[in-house]
Every structure is written in C-alpha cells, then in structure tokens.
C-alpha cells in the first residue's frame, strides 16, 4: 500500500525554466512533509519541508506548496539548473502522533536539459 505517490517517474525541463514535481498522499494523518534530492551512490539530501499548518514554504530557488484538502504537494524549482538533475523523493510523517519515521514516495527523476 503506497501511501505516498509520485506519479511521474521522470521529468525533463529546459535549463532556466521552472521544474514542478508532484506528490500525492493517502494517509490524512500525515502532517509534515519533506523533499529530498538523491544522486546515484549518495544518500538523500534534505531540500525543504512544510508543516500541515502552512500551505507554502520557500527557500531560495525551492518552494513547496501543500494542498491538504487534495492531499497533494508540489516542489517548484526556479530557475532550474543542470546540477538539479537527480531523483527527487517526497516524504511524509505523522509529527503530531510522535511518529517521526519517514514514508517515502517512489521518486521522480528530474533531468535538466542545457
């Protein structure tokens, strides 16, 4: 039962344009969400997070949007750079239940085209 889903296995974006990665979840008890970036042979790198009490969080080129009613979040990267090419995972946890294990999505491979 995949509780966190990333329906696009891959995405290609021109350098300088906006990259939008999407994530859906089914468990309404998730209340904290994180995005990670992963290069081959490396561990996931934390990018940005958002609590369910917010609908937007921004950090430099990265912005995460959360739509609780739709159980949907998205990561916007603008402008996209070649170094952004990687696999992106969204992850969720149940902070208010003291349950801090991450449940990951299946990942989206982002390729930035120079």
């Amino acid at each position, binding site marked *: 039962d995949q509780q966190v889903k990333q329906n696009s296995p891959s995405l290609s974006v021109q350098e300088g344009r906006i990259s939008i990665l999407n994530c859906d979840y089914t468990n309404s008890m998730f209340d904290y969400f*994180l995005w990670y970036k992963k290069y081959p042979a490396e*561990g996931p790198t934390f990018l940005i997070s958002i609590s369910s009490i917010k609908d937007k969080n921004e950090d430099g080129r990265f912005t995460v949007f959360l739509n609780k009613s739709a159980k949907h979040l998205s990561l916007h990267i603008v402008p996209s750079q070649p170094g952004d090419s990687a696999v992106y*995972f969204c992850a969720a*946890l149940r*902070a208010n239940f*003291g349950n*801090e*294990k*991450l449940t*990951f999505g299946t990942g989206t491979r982002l390729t930035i085209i120079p």
Partner: protein
Amino acid sequence: AAGVIQSPRHLIKEKRETATLKCYPIPRHDTVYWYQQGPGQDPQFLISFYEKMQSDKGSIPDRFSAQQFSDYHSELNMSSLELGDSALYFCASSLTKGYYEQYFGPGTRLTVT
C-alpha cells in the same frame, strides 16, 4: 559541515552469514533512523533510536537487531543473511525528537551472494 558517516560503504556477504553496519550521526544529534532501499524501490523505514532507546520499529526482520550506544552511534546487526537482504542501507540522524528534518548518510550497499 560534518555529515552522517556510515561504514562500510560496500559489503559482500554470503547467504547465512552475519553483517554489522555502523552509523555515526551528525555531532549533537541524538536520534538515529535506519532505512532499507531495495533495487528500484523507495527507502523503507526499519528502526529508530532516541537517546539510546528504541523509539519506533518498522518492517524489520527478526533476524536484524540494532542498538544505539552512549556516543550516539548506532549499529545494525543482520544475521542469517538472505539474498533478499541485498539492498542499500541508509542511516539518518536528526537533532532530537520534534526536529523532523532527517539527514542521511551515504549508505552501505550490502550484496548477499
């Protein structure tokens, strides 16, 4: 900045052997998590520790055990290894309970032959 250290980075074992994976969290982090990532899969939570006590357990086989030591490093012990245990094993640390950002190590690639 100091990151999470995992050792070894690569490990090859035969079926029915044992393996020990080590994790050294970021300094001053007292919470450690272990995840397993199979080929083409997303990372799956195994077990976590907070202040040297087990705090949560996921789908970890009974053949696996783990602990966190007084210096906050953690070890994952795997016995009676099976072919299906071949995977990437990640350790992550967070500052403490209530700080949700987890920082991952580079992983240990375990191959069971």
